[in-house]
């Protein structure tokens, strides 16, 4: 398939404006500026593009909630706080092709009437932040940002806001709190950011990969986009593959590619001759799939039907050597480390899960520990302010559902059955 989002990856100096322009970049924004903003919103709706950050909400619909009143200040925030273990797609875009993101942000800002955009990039991505900063400077120097961009009546400023180590900032309202200089704890919804977002103003928050899809939708049309992949979950998708495969990396493929096709055709198969044991299909929150489920299509609805989710498109592959108790412990440790502390079930529940998982992993599990984990899951799931606690539970439930006997073996025999 012809690449759309990663088309410039691997080309020399792909991060430079002149090379982006030479590859056909910054044409879409110039076409967009000749269209009516509401027509662009409609195009994105018609394309069927769903948010690539994890939630999969219709991008065009999200944009359409922004009030039309031109006297109200509006903001666009790009969510580049990529932090779900297994995920590194947005980094790939920002490091290698920052201008595709800027062009996506320009079109989006014009469509929703935002005059200011912020890119919220996680603090550890120093290289990416520098690349973006240089790209923004290049764009200002050319008149692609600032007053009357491309000689139009539309003006736009884009700034970088650097995070400093908090996964929760990927939750959109926590991200807004963080830009406002506060502790990044999620806000109560409603009001939704489309009505009262950054500084209380209407705000759209979109993921990097989502925004990087926008120029191609303008250029090639919504129909082209909507015809790629499944009808209700169309378009190109970046899968970030890691773990026990021969060729881990970023793969841009049509939505709906199967797990088997991705691993065995694109990634060169398993790393060694050990057979596949489990696959996390969408970042660690996504319940894992087993070797029997490799024909599952990687798209929002197919994975939801399997009780999992596409999430960020981070595919973590594990062979028979992987201990599922250890995997559950490591993943859960992440969530308890990142719990923001706002609400009790997550703040107290996720570290409790971690303590129990740690003792099982270390051969100190007690009879009844599996039931204790299940009971804690029940008391966390659906009872938290934001999806972080749910993510911790979904990950653990996926492990328990498919590999309960490994947890029991650890408790009974004080050792691992996998290694």
């Amino acid at each position: 398939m012809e690449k759309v989002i990663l088309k410039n990856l691997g080309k020399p100096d792909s991060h430079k404006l002149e090379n982006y322009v030479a590859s056909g970049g910054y044409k879409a924004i110039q076409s967009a500026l000749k269209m009516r903003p509401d027509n662009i919103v409609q195009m994105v709706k018609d394309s069927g593009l769903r948010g690539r950050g994890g939630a999969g909400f219709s991008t065009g619909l999200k944009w359409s909630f922004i009030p039309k009143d031109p006297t109200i200040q509006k903001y666009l925030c790009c969510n580049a706080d990529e932090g779900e273990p297994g995920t590194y797609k947005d980094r790939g875009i920002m490091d290698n092709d920052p201008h595709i993101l800027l062009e996506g942000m320009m079109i989006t800002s014009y469509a929703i009437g935002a005059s200011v955009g912020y890119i919220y990039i996680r603090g550890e991505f120093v290289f990416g932040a520098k690349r973006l900063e240089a790209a923004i400077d290049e764009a200002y120097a050319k008149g692609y940002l600032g007053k009357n961009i491309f000689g139009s009546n539309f003006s736009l400023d884009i700034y970088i806001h650097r995070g400093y180590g908090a996964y929760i900032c990927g939750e959109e309202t926590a991200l807004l709190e963080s830009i406002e200089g506060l502790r990044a704890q999620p806000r109560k919804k409603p009001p939704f950011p489309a009505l009262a977002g950054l500084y209380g103003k209407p705000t759209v928050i979109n993921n990097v990969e989502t925004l990087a899809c926008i120029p191609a939708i303008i250029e090639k049309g919504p129909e082209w986009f909507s015809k790629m992949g499944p009808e209700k979950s169309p378009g190109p998708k970046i899968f970030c593959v890691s773990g026990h495969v021969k060729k881990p990396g970023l793969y841009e493929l049509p939505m709906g590619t199967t797990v088997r096709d991705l691993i065995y055709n694109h990634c060169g198969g398993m790393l060694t001759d050990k057979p596949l044991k489990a696959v996390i299909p969408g970042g660690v929150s996504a319940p894992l799939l087993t070797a029997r489920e490799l024909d599952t299509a990687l798209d929002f609805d197919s994975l939801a039907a399997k009780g999992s989710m596409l999430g960020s498109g981070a595919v973590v592959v594990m062979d028979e050597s992987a201990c599922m108790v250890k995997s559950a412990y490591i993943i859960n440790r992440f969530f308890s480390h990142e719990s923001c502390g706002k609400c009790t079930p997550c703040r107290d529940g996720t570290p409790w899960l971690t303590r129990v998982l740690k003792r099982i992993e270390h051969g100190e599990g007690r009879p009844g520990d599996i039931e204790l984990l299940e009971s804690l899951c029940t008391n966390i799931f659906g009872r938290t302010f934001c999806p972080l606690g749910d993510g911790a539970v979904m990950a653990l439930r996926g492990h328990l559902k498919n590999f309960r006997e490994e947890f029991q073996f650890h408790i009974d025999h004080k050792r691992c059955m996998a290694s």
Partner: protein
Amino acid sequence: MLSEEAKKEIEKALRKYPNKRSAVMDALRSAQKARGGHLEKADMDEIAVILEMQAVEVNAAAAFYTMYNIDKPVGKYHIQVCRNISCSLMGAEHIIKHMERTLNIKTGETTGDKKFTLSTVECLGSCGTAPMMQINDDFHENLDEAKVEEILKGLE
């Protein structure tokens, strides 16, 4: 006292936002950089004055984010080895143990000459090139023992 460079960076950060408080993260980052990797109360108090915030608000913001090292000086090179799922599958524990042996410190400690601090972190977004670590601003990927040795040797 904040360095002149840090103050200039804070001035620049203030131009990005409609309110002063929003510049707090950039300000803390600049102050931490100026001090060589950590923050002290005096820095946060000074930032509070510049940004017209209460000192406790600046401290609350700083304490929330793991990359601000409040009252915790780090070595000239802060080594952060990722230990989450993808890196763990590809041998992160081995890298961490090797690092502890080579530097003769435990995770969380700083060498006697204040050159290296060793930490572990939960995912740095470099999972396809696991195992990996970050030293100060730079990522080092596809690690094995030999590569770790070579990287450490290259650090003056």
